[in-house]
């Protein structure tokens, strides 16, 4: 699946997007966040506090219980601050 990062998550992770091959145990947005965080380094820092993060699956907001599958585009970002 494709993973996108915005704002300070992008800075901590060090990239704006990447394609990942997540194991079959990754079934939800929360599973994916935990799996990415376990990579350590900037990822661990970015995903240290999931309460500070929001997510979108295929450009639709979703909470961390939303299911993800191969081919999905999952975005992680902080709460929005436009306007």
């Amino acid at each position, binding site marked *: 699946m494709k993973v996108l990062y*915005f*704002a300070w998550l992008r800075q901590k992770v060090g990239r704006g997007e990447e394609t990942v091959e997540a194991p079959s145990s990754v079934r939800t947005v929360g599973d994916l966040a935990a799996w990415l965080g376990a990579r350590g380094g900037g990822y661990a820092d970015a995903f240290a506090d999931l309460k500070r993060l929001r997510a*979108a699956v295929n450009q639709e907001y979703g909470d961390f219980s939303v299911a993800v599958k191969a081919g999905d585009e999952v975005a992680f*970002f902080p709460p*929005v*601050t*436009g306007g």
Partner: protein
Amino acid sequence: MIRVQSEDFDPGVEIGRFQREDVGAIVSFTGVVRGESHGERLVSMTLEHFPGMTERELERIAVEARTRWSLQGVSVVHRVGELRPGERIVLVVTAAAHRQAAFEAAEFLMDYLKTRAPFWKRELRASGEYWVEARSSDDEAAARWSR
């Protein structure tokens, strides 16, 4: 009309698009970059967005406004990229037969835009770079429109 762009916009031109005899009221809101933040001089503000999703969310918010109020037109223009103090960031224009719908819809659009549209602000101040934190007061402002 929904636009996300790095270029500036002309509020007069955007307002003028709705001036016609069946529109009795045109309300506009223009957001401007303040020159001060957290007691410091702001050097610049950089706006990042989620191309595709941002436009879709703005479109969705505009559709929601049109279902709640009888509107003849809605425009949202939001800038991205690096902006200086005093520059325009965002414009919302609503057009309706009567002013109440136009006023309320403009306020609703801004409240929803602030909490729903995927934009992120980064400030450059004298002491460094800071990502702007989401404000609970913005969530509360948006929540009052919930039915």
